[in-house]
């Protein structure tokens, strides 16, 4: 068990709380840098996907996990970013400029969606974002002069002022750098006053408001940042997948993104990454296990969705804090051994809170 005696405020908000953090995150960094030489080409492509989804997950985590606003249409922002990137790089713009514009445009769209969010709460917000997602998907399909419609649109490899990231390795490093930058930005944001305003809004809007937090400003800001991160993720996604079609940004994708943050652990930065690993790893795991099951189950077309649904139900029922919450429990168990008590993480018995009276 480690006891940290804090003696000043800077120590309290420091990113690495103690030597263990420094050591383990350096190890993780080393592994990530060495990954192209350790992993095969296929695994590296999966790692790239994990990084891309982590960026999107960070954005959704900021919105859902830290500000408490839920978006059931986040794939729309992903799509706006992806199509912007595709169109701009198609016109010959360099990658950094294009991705900045993609993020900016997504953020602008996020503000537009955030505006009804000021008036509606809870499930109404979910339905507003859901509707918005459907409309954007339809726009992608119909605006054929720009998006190529249902026939799809192909995307080239990123071009950074002459340096082309056209191999799997170089694109992996590009994604890695952007993921690290985004993560640092979000972590920094969360320890600033803005981040704490977000958390205050999540915990109670009324008390946040009475502490002088401008609800509409911070909610819109949260939507904008979240959408910008989704836009960056979408831009990278466009380069990785090389071919965009509107059905990649449908309601199923939005639900996958939500599933990612819920299973990863709502309200933890780590949750976005664990969720991304889970989301990318699960189909691989299913196809690996498939052959050992009897044909009637293993080859049935609905197996994947049953497993997705089952895992989601199991997490909400038995591990509401997600994968990261499970890790926290294991860690505490090991640290306190043998004094771990069963109810240590049990939340206070909560009663049905009425949404109608908010």
């Amino acid at each position, binding site marked *: 068990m480690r006891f940290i005696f804090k003696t000043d405020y800077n120590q309290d908000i420091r990113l690495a709380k103690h030597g263990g953090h420094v050591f383990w995150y350096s190890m993780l960094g080393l592994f990530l840098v060495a990954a192209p030489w350790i992993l095969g080409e296929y695994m590296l492509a999966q790692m790239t996907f994990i990084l891309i989804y982590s960026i999107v997950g960070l954005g959704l985590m900021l919105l859902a996990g830290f500000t408490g606003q839920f978006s059931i249409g986040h794939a729309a922002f992903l799509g706006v970013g992806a199509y912007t990137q595709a169109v701009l790089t198609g016109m010959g713009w360099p990658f950094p400029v294009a991705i900045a514009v993609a993020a900016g445009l997504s953020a602008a769209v996020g503000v537009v969606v955030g505006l009804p969010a000021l*008036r509606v709460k809870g499930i109404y917000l979910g339905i507003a974002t859901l509707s918005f997602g459907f409309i954007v998907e339809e726009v992608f399909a*119909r605006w054929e002069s720009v998006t190529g419609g249902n026939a799809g649109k192909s995307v080239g490899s990123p071009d950074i002022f002459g340096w082309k990231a056209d191999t799997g390795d170089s694109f992996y490093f590009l994604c890695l750098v952007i993921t690290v930058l985004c993560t640092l930005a979000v972590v920094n944001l969360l320890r600033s006053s803005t981040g704490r305003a977000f958390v205050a809004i999540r915990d109670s809007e009324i008390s946040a408001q009475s502490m002088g937090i401008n609800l509409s400003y911070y909610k819109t800001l949260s939507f904008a940042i979240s959408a910008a991160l989704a836009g960056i993720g979408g831009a990278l996604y466009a380069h990785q997948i090389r071919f965009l079609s509107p059905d990649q940004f449908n309601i199923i994708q939005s639900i996958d993104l939500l599933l990612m943050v819920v299973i990863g652990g709502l309200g933890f930065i780590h949750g976005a990454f664990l969720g991304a690993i889970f989301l990318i790893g699960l189909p691989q795991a299913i196809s690996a296990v498939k052959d050992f099951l009897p044909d009637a189950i293993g080859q049935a077309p609905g197996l994947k969705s049953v497993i997705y649904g089952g895992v989601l139900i199991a997490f909400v029922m038995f591990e*509401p804090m997600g994968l990261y919450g499970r890790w926290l429990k294991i860690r505490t168990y090991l640290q306190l051994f043998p004094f771990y008590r069963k109810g240590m993480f049990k939340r206070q018995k909560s009663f049905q809170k009425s949404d109608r009276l908010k």
Partner: protein
Amino acid sequence: MQFLQLVISGIAQGCIYGLIALGFVLIYKATETVSFAQGDLMMLGAFGGLVAMTMLGFPFWLAVPSAIVAMALVGVLTERVIIRPVLGQPAFSIVMLTIGLGYVGRGLVTMIPNIGTETHTLPVPYKDQVWNVGALVLNVEQMVVIASTVALCGGLFALFRYSKLGIAMQASSQNQLAAYYMGIPVKTLNGLVWGLAAGVAAIAGLLLAPITFVHANMGFIGLKAFPAAVVGGFGSLPGAIVGGLIIGIVESLSGFYLPEGFKDIAAYIVVLIMLVVMPNGLFGEKLRKKV
């Protein structure tokens, strides 16, 4: 005449949306939970009817009630096993839970060999018949939808107005704690509400089946019932039906008068406008939290 024709088919479609929305609203009022699995319950109901008619060989008049009762049991069971243990968790967890339920339901149906991946037609006695009233051509399937919805609404109105059960449900939806103190078994009622919602969803599925087809993804139509529920005001039962009718008619008219593509998103455009102009819906209650 064209216009009237479109309105009638819009009303029929709107009745389906309204019935699914009714399920949302019932569950929302009773347990403050929004069920994303409602569309999939509807799909299960339609498959139940299909199995009863084609595989078990039940006649039509027996197959329909047995499918509805079976679905109601599924609803009660779902509430008992899955929803009740997580009540009190953040609303969003429960939404995710119902999304998971929807996935499982859809996946399980798809997994049934030879049935799940096909599209089927439900062999109802009134299939493909039309009535000619003046210049109007009325599709009997649509008329059955409208008539059944009217009858069902009457039944539900009577239930909530006159029966002890319905009044108890109203009480517990207004204030669970107070209802509990008055001796109303709130938990049992929540189970019954889920059963009722699943039964209504099954009826919607059985009514929709002859118009479209029965297949595993028909539950996605449930997503269009959300706009219906919001337009009507999320906590209002008549609002759900009215909202459904509005959405259905707007959709039907925009499919004819507006360029291609608007039909699919008309419902969502209407709901976004509604949320900006009148967030509480047509019949919604306006309440402020007092500190």
